[in-house]
């Protein structure tokens, strides 16, 4: 596990989120010891691969829950987790303050499932008792009547130029967006936030109910995050996209046939 010491933002010559901090992207995986239930590492691997395909070097920092969160990362990733780890992780992140500081400086934050709920002002913990969230997105989450389990398809906000999302959701959360957040997408299959929308974003903070390796089948969403951190990206060689394009087509076709 890579766990690097970090230089606090106040000492760093290049503040986070400033697009010219050398050509390297610093990816920070927040609390894999608490927030990594099912394939969450996939998001890290996809971002790393797609950056490298453009010749952009990547530094990966995995930060466990007993370590301080560096403030000078470019992209922060948060995964899924059960109720108790979700509450513990939130408590520690609030006390640490590193993630909020980085987001305040314009760093990219990408969170799935439990991590997505944590970004909000409040979420439902054990027995749905409200728990204070990180307050990085104007959303509130609670527990729904039924668990949403299955393939999800959603059309992303056209202004993000990402196209269609395909993924798997597995959660019991219901999320309501406040005026400060925009829906990431509108669902055509699946539950998402529970009101026909899916995920949310504001500035460079983005969350989704697509769980686990959400970026695997959605390379254009991965590229959006990378471009937020590193500026415009050149296209990837077509042969490097072939397998993932086939996978996307297969999954989208499978759910269309099934529904």
């Amino acid at each position, binding site marked *: 596990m890579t766990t690097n010491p970090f230089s606090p933002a106040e000492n760093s010559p290049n503040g986070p989120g400033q697009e010219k901090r050398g050509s390297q992207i610093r990816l920070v995986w927040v609390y894999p010891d*608490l927030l990594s239930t099912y394939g969450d590492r996939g998001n890290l691997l*996809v971002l790393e691969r797609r950056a490298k395909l453009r010749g952009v070097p990547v530094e990966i920092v995995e930060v466990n829950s007993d370590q301080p969160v560096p403030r000078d990362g470019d992209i922060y990733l948060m995964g899924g987790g059960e109720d108790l780890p979700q509450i513990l992780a939130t408590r520690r992140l609030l006390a640490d303050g590193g993630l909020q500081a980085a987001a305040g400086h314009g760093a990219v934050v990408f969170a799935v499932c439990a991590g997505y709920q944590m970004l909000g002002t409040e979420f439902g913990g054990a027995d749905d008792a409200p728990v204070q969230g990180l307050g990085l997105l104007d959303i509130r989450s609670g527990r729904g009547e039924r668990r949403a389990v299955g393939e999800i398809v959603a059309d992303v906000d056209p202004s993000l130029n990402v196209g269609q999302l395909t993924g798997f959701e597995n959660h019991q959360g219901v999320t309501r967006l406040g005026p400060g957040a925009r829906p990431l997408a509108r669902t055509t299959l699946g539950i998402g936030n529970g009101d026909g929308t899916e995920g949310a974003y504001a500035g460079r903070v983005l969350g989704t109910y697509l769980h686990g390796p959400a970026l695997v089948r959605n390379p254009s969403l991965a590229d959006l995050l990378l471009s937020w951190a590193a500026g415009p990206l050149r296209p990837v060689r077509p042969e490097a996209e072939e397998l993932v394009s086939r996978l996307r087509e297969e999954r989208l076709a499978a759910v269309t046939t099934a529904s």
Partner: protein
Amino acid sequence: MDDNTHQRFRLPMRARVATTVGGAAATVSRLAGKGDGSVIGGIIGLRLAPDLLSLLAAGRQVVLVTGTNGKTTTTKLITAALAPLGGEIASNIYGANMEAGLTSALSRAPDARVAVLETDEKYIPAMVKATRPKVVVLLNLSRDQMDRAAEIWLLARRWREALGHAPDCRVVANADDPLVAWAASSAQQVTWVAAGQRWREDSWCCPHCGAHLQRDGDDWSCRECGHRRPPVSWTLDEDEVIDPSGQATKLDLALPGRANRSNAVVALAVAEAFGVQLTPALRELRKVTSVAGRYTQVNRRGCDIRLLLAKNPAGWLEALDVMAPAPTPILLSVNAQGPDGRDTSWLWDVDFRRLRGRHVLVGGERKLDLAVRLEADGVAFKLVNGIDEAIDAALTVAPNLEVLANYTAFQQYRVALGRVQ
């Protein structure tokens, strides 16, 4: 006087009718080629007598075996290790591990005084209540088929509550798995086994208080609440078992891999609870060569094929450990039907980088998910359709092939190769 024969005669009429009708249905199901009949018989029996499992378990010495991985193999190993007791042992060897499967296993062996029953993790609380087991075996807990299985911290808490209310039951538990150790520590009587833990991604944090665990080799402890690895009485040390007297004995199993050595040590600890000595128990363990088609070697068109089944990241990690070295080609195969879990996300928890430079074939209904995963790890591969295409590809490189598949992908190959045992 045979207690069980006696007990069977005391079964109420509705239980006797239920087992007879259930048994007939199982026979019909087998004859119709719909499987081994172990579930349908139990379902029908339970519909006629909902308390049938309790009735069938009464008066027997029951062992329940659970955990994310190794249930089926350990059940078979325990059954083997208890053979020196003599007499029939009831068991659900075909992996039907929910209430109907357990019911069916007991109804098919009315005279067995001992039953060794693989039990689905979620059903442990209900099955502990229904069967009043002599021994409960807790192997390990890790992420598994998240779309249908319960979350594992939640499972551990349910085990913990159930075992806290079963004072007569002895728990045989893996002390090296912090989640399992926490669940078992509510029990009155525990035999702790150092069975090892290869997969650690689900136990970095204390199950009791959530603090990051301190880990040093196999040892672990929580600085916050004091939850720590309990002192063990049985240990797996490389290829040796160290028994409670401190004596080391070579295992020499026919089954491959560290995971199976660990399962064997657990089986020896259960045998001890039944008064079976290590030497005769181990003699029986060494005779086990395959488990419901797993680890089976079969030759097809001059190609020696070995079949390995693994269903989740921890299982794949252990299976990749036992793969024959290069140049033996490896066929990886993944489906996402109901029993596999419909979500292939878990592939991203498996580190495939060690397969770089190997001859890798990729099959199964979700081969593209696996292909994209391998691409990200820089592993070259060839896509194949079906076992015969894989054999063709393998034979261009070597006269043998290692197959690693998840549940339904494994069953499809097994059928294609003639229902190998």
